[in-house]
């Protein structure tokens, strides 16, 4: 039986090819569900038609779902290894158990709980590659991207969730149009073993007793190989219509076996498959599951998947191209919008600048001509004012000293050294530089906030001097006090007196000293504050 690909929708879609010993059924996927179905017999004519189909149909990815008797399973344990070591161990195991086939698969099943906690794996293989290779060869010849070669039994694991299976021991039973009765045993939702039994053509024999007979055989086999876990076994049978009634009558639940009969049409509805399925076969459901979930490849070899890799690269590049163009368009567009906005603002600013320039020119024309800018006129005047404010002459100091001397006519000034500056502690010519020369009780000036300072060092003598040092000291200190009392005076320091009363100094003499000193010299430093600094 073959259907000619005469009305193929050449749109770009995914598709699944269910490979059975007798035929290959191709399902097209589109809009979230299967749209078209094509069947190719497993003979030369079917292969020719498949070749033509591949040639004429669009080169969308093809997912191959294999459902054949010649699929074997082995549970093994291997040391817990990683990387190349693990790969080497697995390759050795696969080569040992499944010689002569490239279609092998390893399904991890966790780790052992005791001992060295080895990894548990399910090794599976399609032991007769000739059932698959003619189809894959045509795909490669026609450069069709084969996305993967999948085991129907392993794919059916996904159905457990959809039909809400809770129990740990499950036997899933389904019929496929061209392969037969698939019985897969799961323990804790992990496939343990699967068996495909041939079925007579629909309607030629009563199916219910046939199915139950096959189940009985498989159950006995599971017990014999000690795969069946303790506890009741839940058997889920997918069927439809007239087949369900006899099954319901003949399936007898017991302590060890519980039957669950599922209508294929109900399961299809739960999976979201559109339309109503009217056959007891489940090919459609598995193809839908595969195309919807698109799991990782099981059996496909690098050569089989070569064009799929290229297809992925091609899709990736096209996607990247679109993304680049989109990003460039968005980024460039944003820049362009910003640039246009800036251009508009620049034009507006230029117009306003022109208006203000004209107004400024007119206003400026009304001002008189000056040799420099008005602001510079202001600066020059301010400089002159500042220099005038800081202008100093010794006349203020001379006046202050004269007024202080009014009450002290015997004090004769011999010299006066004077300077002006902003440092009140500046040293004047003739002034002792060392601190030890400063008598105690003097008042060194601090920073009193004056604009600048005038500093003078006066040298003088008491004339006439009668030799009374105490009286001389009193007069000199009195003069210093008179100076300090002047409002502008910021500091007065008596630097030198006729008789050194400082305990730090040395003193010599005798009680019978007849000679009377003729002079009593003194030195006084005066600091005058001038003006008050602004602020």
């Amino acid at each position, binding site marked *: 039986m073959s259907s000619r690909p005469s009305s193929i929708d050449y749109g770009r879609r995914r598709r699944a090819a269910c490979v059975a010993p007798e035929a290959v059924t191709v399902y097209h996927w589109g809009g979230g569900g299967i749209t078209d179905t094509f069947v190719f017999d497993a003979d030369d004519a079917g292969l020719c038609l498949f070749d033509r189909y591949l040639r004429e149909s669009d080169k969308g990815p093809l997912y191959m779902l294999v459902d054949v008797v010649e699929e074997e399973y082995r549970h093994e344990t291997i040391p817990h290894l990683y990387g190349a070591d693990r790969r080497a161990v697995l390759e050795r195991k696969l080569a040992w158990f499944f010689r002569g086939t490239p279609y092998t698969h390893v399904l991890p099943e966790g780790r052992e709980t005791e001992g060295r906690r080895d990894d548990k794996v399910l090794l599976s293989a399609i032991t007769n590659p000739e059932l698959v290779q003619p189809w894959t060869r045509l795909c490669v010849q026609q450069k069709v991207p084969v996305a993967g070669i999948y085991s129907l039994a392993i794919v059916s694991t996904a159905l457990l969730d959809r039909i809400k299976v809770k129990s740990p021991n499950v036997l899933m039973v389904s019929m496929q149009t061209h392969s037969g009765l698939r019985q897969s045993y799961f323990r804790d939702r992990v496939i343990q073993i699967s068996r495909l039994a041939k079925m007579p053509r629909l309607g030629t024999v009563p199916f219910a007793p046939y199915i139950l007979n096959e189940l009985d055989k498989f159950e006995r086999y599971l017990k014999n190989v000690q795969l069946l876990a303790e506890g009741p076994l839940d058997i889920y049978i997918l069927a439809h219509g007239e087949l369900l009634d006899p099954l319901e009558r003949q399936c007898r639940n017991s302590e060890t076996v519980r039957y669950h009969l599922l209508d294929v049409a109900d399961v299809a509805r739960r999976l979201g498959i559109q339309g109503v399925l009217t056959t007891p076969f489940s090919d459609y459901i598995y193809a839908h599951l595969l195309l919807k979930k698109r799991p990782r490849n099981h059996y496909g070899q690098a050569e089989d998947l*070569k064009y799929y890799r290229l297809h992925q690269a091609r899709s990736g590049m096209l996607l990247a191209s679109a993304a680049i163009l989109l990003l460039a368009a968005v980024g460039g567009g944003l820049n362009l919008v910003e640039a246009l906005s800036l251009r508009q603002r620049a034009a507006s600013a230029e117009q306003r600048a022109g208006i203000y320039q004209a107004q400024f020119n007119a206003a400026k024309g009304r001002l008189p001509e000056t040799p420099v800018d008005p602001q510079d006129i202001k600066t020059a005047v301010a400089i002159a004012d500042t220099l005038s404010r800081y202008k100093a002459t010794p*006349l203020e100091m001379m006046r202050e000293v004269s007024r202080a001397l009014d009450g002290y006519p015997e004090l004769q000034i*011999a010299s006066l050294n004077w300077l002006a500056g902003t440092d009140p502690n500046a040293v004047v010519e003739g002034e002792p530089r060392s601190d030890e020369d400063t008598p105690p009780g003097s008042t060194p000036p601090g920073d009193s906030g004056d604009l600048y300072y005038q500093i003078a060092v006066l040298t003088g003598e008491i004339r006439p001097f009668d030799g009374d040092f105490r009286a001389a000291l009193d007069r000199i200190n009195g003069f210093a006090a008179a100076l300090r009392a002047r409002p502008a005076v910021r500091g007065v320091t008596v630097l030198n007196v006729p008789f050194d009363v400082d305990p730090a100094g040395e003193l010599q003499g005798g009680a019978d000293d007849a000679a009377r000193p003729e002079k009593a010299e003194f030195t006084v430093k005066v600091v005058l504050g001038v003006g008050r600094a602004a602020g």
Partner: protein
Amino acid sequence: MRLADIEWGVIRGALGALVLAAAIGATLYTAATRFRDAMQVKYSEIHQRLQSVTGKYLAVDQEDMIIREQYPRFVELVRKGVIGNEQRLNWIEVLKRTAAITKIPSLRYEIAAREPFTPDFGLATGPYQVRVSKMKLDLGLLHENDLSAVLAALDGKADGIYSVRDCTFRRSAERIEPRLDRENLKSACELLWFTIRLANGNEIKL
């Protein structure tokens, strides 16, 4: 997949599309970015010009006020030699005339070359440079009022601004005698004469 296994025919179109998209995308983005940058620069320049001219326009009233209030004083400062060239001859004439009128027993002067002035107080000079000429005066005085007379004459008649930096006074005789030609006091003072000039060397012409 090795490079040798790649069938370039399968991906040639996509690869070409990728290269083309990258080229178009880069060109589009670069062109738009450059256009935006150019507009940004142009806008910044115009905006700066607008701010400048707006500021100048708003300052016209203030400039008018400055001219009305400060320009006469500026002119006076220029004429008195505070702004522009110093008036050394005028200073010397004033000193000599004062010495003659006041009958100062002796007066010697010495003026050093003009040099930039570095003040020890805050002075915002703007486009100007302040220069200073140091004048040393050695005076033989009858009494201290002679110095007052000299400084008063400089204040009133000499063109320019000066400040006395330092002075020393010494009594030259034991007894002060009130004879007109008698040098009872000796004084040495240093005066700083200030002038204000444009820092760029341009002359200010009224």
